[in-house]
């Protein structure tokens, strides 16, 4: 297993380099630059700005500089902040939102999925399955404002926006409920569909029948025997999904005015904030690779048919 992990980590280095190169050069090929504004500057000022931000160096030099010094580079848009500083300030917010959303998604998703799979094609199946279908069809930018309208503006249970009462240091605050729900419900819908499918496959397998024949209780069969295999599709799905969730959701962050990494990700591209784009992309890529590795390990642990090679 150690060898497997080591090999996978070594493999990530060329992958990350490729990602960095593609991001860097694609950014530079895009028209417009960080200093374009609706009030245009003179060519002289533009030249001086290029010099100040080292854009006058040959591209390959800049690329090396970017890769080597990435975390300590200045953001173009917010020159008082470094790439590393922005990511380390924003990521915890997104990660916490992601964590709450995953908890909701897994909790509700697996529960609904299992229930639906136990009595396929009956009302016990139809009701959670149709709820899940609605959840998938309702995009977050519809669900979010709907929840705000009902639970904030009408019922006044939760604040409509914010994160940690705008103090950002509380572990949990009322204003975290709606964004976590919006994001969580969307994923819960997917997970319940995947769980239902996975469970239906497993429940007809011989080893389940054997377990039942041995006299194991119904709950025990589901939790110990069936879920282990039934959750495999969910686990493969969760790798990239978790990365996406904790790295921030642009839409949710915008709707709820949450200062997370998702907004930086999207805005940095629009702003041609070359350093920040690369920083966030590299951070995200590393996260995906890491989570995929964890998923692969989990799959071998859960599925006795797989081995580490």
């Amino acid at each position, binding site marked *: 297993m150690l060898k497997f992990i080591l090999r996978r980590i070594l493999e990530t280095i060329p992958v990350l380099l490729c990602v960095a190169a593609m991001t860097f050069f694609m950014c530079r090929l*895009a*028209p*417009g*630059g960080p*200093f*374009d*504004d*609706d*009030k*245009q*500057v*003179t060519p002289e*000022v533009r030249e*001086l*700005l290029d*010099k*100040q931000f080292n854009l006058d160096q040959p591209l390959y030099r800049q690329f090396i500089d970017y890769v080597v010094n990435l975390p300590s580079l*200045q953001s173009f*848009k*917010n*020159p*008082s*902040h470094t790439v590393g500083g*922005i990511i380390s*300030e924003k990521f915890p917010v997104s990660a916490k939102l992601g964590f*709450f959303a995953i*908890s*909701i998604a*897994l*909790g*509700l998703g*697996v*529960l609904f999925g299992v229930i639906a799979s136990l009595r396929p094609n009956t009302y016990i199946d139809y009701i959670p399955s149709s709820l899940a279908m609605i959840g998938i069809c309702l995009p977050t930018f519809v669900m979010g*404002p709907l929840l*705000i309208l009902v639970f*904030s*503006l009408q019922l006044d*249970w*939760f*604040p*409509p*926006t*914010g994160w940690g009462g*705008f103090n*950002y240091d509380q572990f*949990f*605050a*009322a204003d975290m*409920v709606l964004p*976590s729900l919006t994001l969580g419900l969307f994923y819960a819908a997917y997970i319940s569909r995947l769980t239902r499918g996975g469970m239906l496959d497993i429940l007809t397998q011989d080893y389940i029948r054997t377990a039942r024949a041995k006299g194991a209780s119904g709950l025990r069969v589901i939790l110990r025997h069936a879920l282990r295999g039934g959750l495999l599709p969910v686990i493969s799905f969760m790798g990239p999904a978790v990365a996406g969730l904790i790295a921030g959701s642009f839409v949710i962050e*915008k*709707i*709820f*005015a949450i*200062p997370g990494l998702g*907004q*930086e990700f999207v805005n940095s591209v*629009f*702003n*041609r904030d070359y350093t920040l784009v690369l920083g966030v992309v590299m951070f995200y890529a590393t996260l995906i690779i890491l989570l995929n590795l964890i998923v692969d390990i989990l799959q071998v642990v859960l599925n006795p048919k797989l081995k580490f090679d």
Partner: protein
Amino acid sequence: MTNRIIACGALGLLAGALAGCGPKIKPTDQGIRDKVLLVTVGAKTEDLDPHVVTGVPEHHVIAALTEGLVAEDPVDLHPVPGTAEKWEVSADGTVYTFHLRENAKWTNGDPVTANDFVQSFKRILTPALASKYAYMLFVMKGAEEYSLGKLNDFSQVGAKALDERTLEITLNSPTPYFLALLNHYTWFPVHIPTIEKHDGMIRRGSGWTQPENFVSNGAFRLKSWQLGRKIVVEKNPHYWDVATTKLNEIHFYPVELETTQENMFRGGQLHNIYNLHTDKIATYKKDHPDELRIKPHLASYFYRFNVTRKPCDDVRVRKALAMALDRDSITKNVTKGERMPALFFTPPGVNGYTARARIEENVEKARQLLAEAGYPDGKGFPPLELLYNTTEGHRIIAEAIQQMWKKNLNIDIKLENQEWKVYLDRQREMDYQVSRAGWTGDYPDPNTFLDMWTSWSQQNQTGWAKPEYDALIRKAATTQNTEARLEVFQQAEEILMEELPILPIYIYTRVYALHPAVKNWHANVLDHHPWKHVDLEAKAAE
């Protein structure tokens, strides 16, 4: 494991529900009680260095933190004493002598001296800093030459500290709007020793703008700055006019989405909506007329013509296009928000100036002009593309105009939307035929709208140049008599409306909402609200 996760989730939800219920006080009500104003100024503040930033959100924050030589009257923004308690102007209007007040202090207790201003001007004009807005100081003698590196000796520039508290500024020509210009943040003083300590004289982002380092001289001082979260400023006890300052703190939140701003306002998290979505105007008029504000704004919405490309190289075509619009219908049915149809370029009422030139909206004449240009009934009209940056609001206007041109002139145009930076790049490279544009005045004077169409202006971007026009703008700069000067602008705008390198569409309004408890927040064309006067007052008990 799964059970545990479910349990955690359920507990979390329960805790949230409990925390959310029960009696609680809204942040806005708490704010009124504590005199803490919660506002949004739209987008995120990029930086707090007045020599580096270029945006409007930055203006609002920096205006709270820093004070220039003069300040603004909260109602009509006429210049009132600021850091300078009085000033004299020479007979020819080119030399201003400012007398700084004795008790003007920096937040660290240092006195604000004349030399602080001189050094601040020097910093923003230093070529190596590459300040995008340095040109705001070009009315000062030698400033432009110094910023271009043609002049190396700053003592030749027209800013001199005669003594500790006397500052003399020499201008190139009498500039009637000079005092108003001084309220632009580019003219604000910065604390040079602090910047030097952080090696930020010619460098952006040196750390001097961080709350633990920031030194300023305004009615408020920086308490905290969390990027993209909020900026908190608190009452500055060293400020010379601290007795006037009403609020204890102002919290600036970056909230870009209009709908989110409204949710926060309705939910008691903000005292204002910076931009109210036009779809909401009718509802607010009916249900919350005391909160809604619709005020004229010093900004113009227009299209640029690329006069170097067919078919807009022909002035008859440009005229026909400009005449064949129904601007009333656009502002009433498309944009809403009580915007003013613009048959001229400069927003009316700027420093006593209302353009007398008018575009005639006349479909018959437009058809005739198009026929004269060689396209009778639109026949043979070359392909024409209208470029705009991807935004719903611009799209619906472009579609309305597309339809009007089709109906009135029988010509088909193509709409092309591009992402912001691509759109800017294409406009700068003149890679367009017709392009959407907007311009917000930097100071309340027609010059800020009319000098951009000179042949040397970076903002022109139409390829249009006319020596007579250039000469008039130059003449206006040296004309001391107010009436005569405005007359020169009238002539310039007449040329502009005759040649039409641009197609004016409407004059912007600011549509926003304000909590009834906010006092001394007056509407004005620049949308400046001198913060020391703003107050929060609870309604008298009913």
